[in-house]
């Protein structure tokens, strides 16, 4: 990518609060939170090839942990955020150890079931979670003497989280661990034959991915100031999958592009069409995207700019 191509999005992102309305800033914050979630799912789906269809569980665990710790134990935001990441990461470890020995379809099933169980717990453990009524009044974060209550301040908090997650993903996928992820995605028995410990690396991916989703959950809880069992809805996971696949799985920028596109798009459609037409347009766009850009937006555009489909020696030629 050219220097301008690299710095222009950063410049735009940094100056958004200066030229966006409050409503549009809200959309940008949600895009940022979904960006964190999409980056987290991409580690599993894009780099190791394992599909987590219960990713909303890690998101929800992060949201509830942070909300409960700040509401019930009056923790401040930052330790609650760390705890949310730790607990979601621990859940990722548990699910990973449980299912990644079997992998593939079994991993998909276990993640779906795990999300279902956690969702039921959130509905039925009323003493802790307040059941379907949820937890209102989650406090806004504070940074020293400043409250991050305003949209602009929260936007920068989310932006920092996106940047952090991007940096972590970048560092990880360029490390030996990331190369092991790719080797496992490409050909697991072959990777194993050259010394890659399958379960170990897949569990590492699951833990980092879940912790990142927990971060997204905590940011969501303290932004909307309300957490209910809806955070475990399957639609959240589906949205994340769409963002990753349409943006370009197995790339670093793809999930972010997908997150922005599929957060902005429903909001735009809402202004011009009724709900049914929105869904129809949404579905049509998805079909067109997969038809014309089967490898995802970012890989296809990168290939177009480079003039040849596969130019980076270390990178994977994105798969359909």
């Amino acid at each position: 990518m050219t220097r301008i191509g690299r710095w222009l999005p950063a410049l735009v992102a940094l100056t958004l609060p200066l030229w966006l309305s409050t409503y549009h800033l809200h959309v940008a914050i949600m895009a940022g939170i979904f960006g964190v979630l999409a980056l987290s799912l991409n580690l599993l789906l894009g780099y190791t090839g394992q599909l987590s269809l219960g990713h909303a569980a890690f998101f929800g665990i992060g949201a509830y942990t942070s909300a409960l710790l700040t509401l019930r134990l009056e923790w401040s935001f930052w330790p609650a955020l760390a705890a949310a990441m730790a607990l979601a990461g621990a859940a990722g470890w548990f699910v990973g150890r449980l299912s990644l020995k079997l992998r593939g379809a079994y991993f998909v099933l276990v993640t779906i079931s795990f999300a279902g169980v956690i969702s039921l717990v959130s509905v039925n453990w009323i003493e802790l979670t307040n059941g379907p009524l949820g937890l209102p009044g989650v406090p806004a974060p504070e940074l020293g003497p400043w409250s991050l209550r305003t949209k602009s301040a929260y936007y920068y908090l989310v932006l920092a989280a996106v940047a952090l997650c991007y940096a972590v993903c970048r560092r990880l996928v360029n490390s030996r661990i990331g190369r092991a992820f790719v080797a496992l995605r490409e050909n697991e028995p072959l990777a194993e034959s050259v010394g890659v410990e399958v379960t170990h690396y897949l569990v590492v991916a699951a833990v980092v991915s879940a912790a990142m989703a927990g971060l997204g959950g905590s940011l969501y809880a303290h932004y909307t100031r309300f957490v209910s069992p809806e955070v475990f809805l399957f639609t959240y996971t589906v949205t994340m999958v769409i963002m990753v696949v349409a943006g370009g799985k197995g790339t670093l920028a793809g999930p972010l592009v997908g997150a922005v596109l599929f957060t902005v798009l429903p909001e735009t459609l809402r202004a011009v069409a009724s709900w049914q037409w929105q869904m129809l347009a949404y579905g049509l766009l998805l079909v067109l995207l997969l038809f014309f850009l089967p490898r995802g937006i970012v890989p296809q555009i990168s290939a177009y700019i480079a003039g040849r489909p596969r130019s980076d020696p270390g990178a994977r030629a994105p798969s359909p």
Partner: protein
Amino acid sequence: MLAVRDLAVRFGGVAALDGVSFAVRPGSITSVIGPNGAGKTTAFNAITGYLRPTGGRVTYDGAPLTGLRPAAIARRGVVRTFQRTSVFPSLHLRGTAVLLAVLAGRRRLAGEESRLAADAAALIEFVGLGHRRRETASGLSYGEQRLVELAVALAARPRVLLLDEPGAGMSAAEKVGVSRLIRKIREQDVTVLLVEHDMRMVMGISDTVIVLNGGRVIAEGAPAEIQAHPDVIRAYLGTSRGPA
């Protein structure tokens, strides 16, 4: 030295390996041959941890390999290729080699990427695919993919390399090339153990030939001895029954 002692693998009531013992001399090229179903690939799978044997043990330089996972065995220097072509399909050759060089490295990655890339390029040249380095593995011919497999295995820096039918599906000319490559690998102090059906290739490159039949070792020796061994001839050609 890679040593196999009384190795047994049973699938239900079928004994795929029934007490197989042999040793692979360091620095040698040893071939395992036998009719279909003799247990050759099963032996490879049991040695490299892809199959848990029901009896016996495998040791390398005295240390037991039995019960270890494939990755752990590979890290001890015992690396294999597969009978069916097995590559990283959507990676370029160069990317594949760099990936493997990185994985094979034991030290920190920072600062060594360029050296690893150079190692990777040398590896691709070594197997004779330098001119194809920009291709993805899935875009190569079958014979070239087998060479990629060899490069993949070599990137893991093996001390013992187990090749499962490296010449399968190749033309006669390609087999000559592979034989030359296997000799070059041996010259780099890598012990080679291979399963192969092509007798011309086996007899041309092997120091020792081990013959399996029905899950047992029926003969072991130099190629010339094996060619004349009556049990081997019987295993391959059958026995003639006298007139009734």
